[in-house]
């Protein structure tokens, strides 16, 4: 018998609120509308924190993990359905889901295990380039291509395992920074992989159905082909989310947390530190690779300039901004980092300045990120079993 009998309605309410917000955020274009929306969000978040709604929502979410996933998934699907004809909004939404997937991978690496990865975009890029090469030269079915792309990203990541296992903290950070820069420079000079001009990637085909075609609904208008990609990206992100949540709640998650908190203590308790570090690093990179593969097919064209060190830093920003170690925080943070600069197009050359100032302000006044990770709730979990 559960001791705390918390209802799941806060989860539903927050999901509906989030969906409406995302919908408006993607749909609105005028600068004053966006300004009103931003002010509204800040007010809503502030009151949520101030009056304890946020705590209630999070508590409810941890009580009802399955309901949370289902409700949020349905809410995301609803957003896609409502936006069905809006190509650009759907492209942004799909991109957000893909970034969420990569950042969930980073959450396993950094949020749980404490391995900082400053080469996230490189593994995303490995997935994308693997896809480009495989689709151009072989007839491997596309779903398989995505899986192979993820595995290749994990495999290439293993080059870094030795230096990563031997180093810690900032020293480990340098290893991934060096790899991230090396990767981009390598792509630019390597003629085999298209050099700076990049490679074209065909659209995704699943069981003979091409995702690059718009779907006509007869008199009801047509559905953008980006809607299909948004659904694929959503499925990927949802899968990654379930994986991460399961990991967190399992004994593996406990091991990873122990390693992050104190490696030496973890080792003295008999935790096989290298093994779990390799596990976390590889799984994270695979997730980045999957996302990269879908991204390549969706955008149809990849070039080294898309996989800058700066983009890796953006990924890390998403994780930190969301609240390191909390997979739920990744979504709002990804929305902010991916879509906001796009919405700021209206101020053209001033947009990055404003973006930087906004992030500084958020961090200054909410240094733990938007949704900081909660302590494990041992008693709540035990009470249910």
């Amino acid at each position, binding site marked *: 018998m559960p001791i705390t009998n918390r209802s799941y309605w806060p989860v539903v309410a927050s999901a509906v609120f989030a969906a409406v917000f995302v919908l408006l955020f993607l749909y609105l274009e005028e600068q004053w509308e966006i300004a009103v929306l931003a002010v509204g969000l800040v007010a809503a978040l502030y009151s949520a924190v101030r009056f304890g709604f946020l705590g209630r929502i999070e508590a409810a979410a941890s009580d009802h993990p399955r309901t949370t996933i289902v409700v949020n998934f349905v809410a995301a699907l609803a957003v896609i359905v409502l936006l069905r004809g809006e190509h*650009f909004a759907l492209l942004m939404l799909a991109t957000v889901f893909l970034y969420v997937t990569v950042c969930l991978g980073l959450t396993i690496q950094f949020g749980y295990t404490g391995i900082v990865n400053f080469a996230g975009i490189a593994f995303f890029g490995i997935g994308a380039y693997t896809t480009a090469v495989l689709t151009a030269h072989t007839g491997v079915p596309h779903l398989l291509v995505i899986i192979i792309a993820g595995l290749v990203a994990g495999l290439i990541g293993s080059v870094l395992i030795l230096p990563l296992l031997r180093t810690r903290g900032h020293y480990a950070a340098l290893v991934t920074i060096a790899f991230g820069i090396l990767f981009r420079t390598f792509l630019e000079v390597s003629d085999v992989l298209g050099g700076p001009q990049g490679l074209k990637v065909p659209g995704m085909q699943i069981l003979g159905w091409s995702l690059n075609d718009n779907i006509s609904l007869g008199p009801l208008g047509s559905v953008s082909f980006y809607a299909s990609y948004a659904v694929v990206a959503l499925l990927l992100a949802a899968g990654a989310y379930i994986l991460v949540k399961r990991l967190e709640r399992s004994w593996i998650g406990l091991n990873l947390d122990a390693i992050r908190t104190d490696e030496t203590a973890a080792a003295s308790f008999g935790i096989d530190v290298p093994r779990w570090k390799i596990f976390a690093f590889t799984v994270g990179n695979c997730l980045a690779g999957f996302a990269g593969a879908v991204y390549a097919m969706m955008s*149809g064209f990849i070039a080294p300039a898309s996989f800058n060190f700066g983009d890796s830093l953006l990924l890390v920003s998403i994780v930190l901004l969301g609240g390191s170690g909390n997979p739920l925080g990744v979504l709002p943070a990804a929305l902010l980092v991916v879509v906001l600069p796009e919405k700021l197009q209206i101020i053209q050359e001033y947009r990055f300045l404003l973006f930087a100032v906004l992030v500084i302000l958020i961090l200054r006044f909410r240094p733990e990120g938007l949704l900081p990770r909660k302590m494990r709730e041992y008693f709540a979990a035990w009470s249910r079993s």
Partner: protein
Amino acid sequence: MKRHYVTLITLLFMLGVAGCASDDKETVKVAFIGPLTGGVSANGLGGRNSAELAIRLQNADSSSKYKYELVALDDECKPNIGVQVATKVAADKHIVAGVTHYCSAVAMGTVDVYHKFGLPVVVWGAVLPDITYGNDYAEVHRVNGTMINQNEVAADFMLQQGYKTWAVVHDTTDYGKGHNRYFSKFVIDKGGRIVGTFGVSADQQDFNAELTKVKELDPDVIYFGGLAPTGVRLRSQMEKLGINAVFQGTSGIVSDAFIDGLGPLAEGVLAFREGAPVEKLPGGESFLSQYQQQDFGEPPEAYGAFAFAAANLIIDAIEKVGPDRKLVMQELNATRDHDSVVGPVTFDEHGQNTVALITRYVIQDGKWVVWEESEYASGKRKLPGS
């Protein structure tokens, strides 16, 4: 500094006005895409201002059938962002056509998007041949020339001047690599010799190691394929190592930024650009003076005139056939000998402007001067090593 605020405020104001104006003329939207932030943003801003100028002049004209509005977007010179904004523009049914892209890599990534959505665009700065010749898309046009003709003329000209050996330094973007490919091909075919080729990254600061190698090879000419910021660094470090070779650039350095960045060191640098010099053309003089009058914060740069011409081509087409993407596209495809500030424009079956006039430039006393009118051509001054 103050001027930037003024630009910003005017822009915001204009957007506001455009949003709620109850003019009796129908409002037609035209997009502009270019790099407004990042390393080559000077060119992007110059292009945006020039396109904006074309729109403002048209709106000031009372005989105009429509009221035009420019939607300017930033592609950051990155293909992934380029695809995003291209989708945004192409999916917006209110936008009839676009003046798009300075960076070749971005244009390569976005042509498919324009084709898919049927948005007619006119490229105003990207020079990679494949953008128009690599596909059969009727939507894609280009007012500026490609790097092929530019380099053929460059090779001919330099060999005529009696130079025999080249060291090529190019950035590893497709712009630099493409220039290296075509120039090397032409110069070797015509009997010149390339003694060394150096690919460098575009954001590299220090070229001493590469240049010391160049010094060892002792070429007559250093050919540089890349954009102004890298060119400035290369030229000034060349001087410090005491390399006394001619510096020959490409269209990417034909900008005021290059001269401003180098000061007196810029003297005697050669470069080649498609199209006649703006001030020599009918309407060119007025373009420059109108640009001055509008009090933009930034200079038009080398490709501003092309953006202006591209915007005007689109406006003329819309005035003629109305704001319909398909009709505008057909009208643009039929462009023959259309007058513009960069000379008469004729699109071939790939939408490429075929006017193959290449102007040769040399920097003399802090200005880009057409070679034939320079004191170097008349023999009054001499290039290094000749």
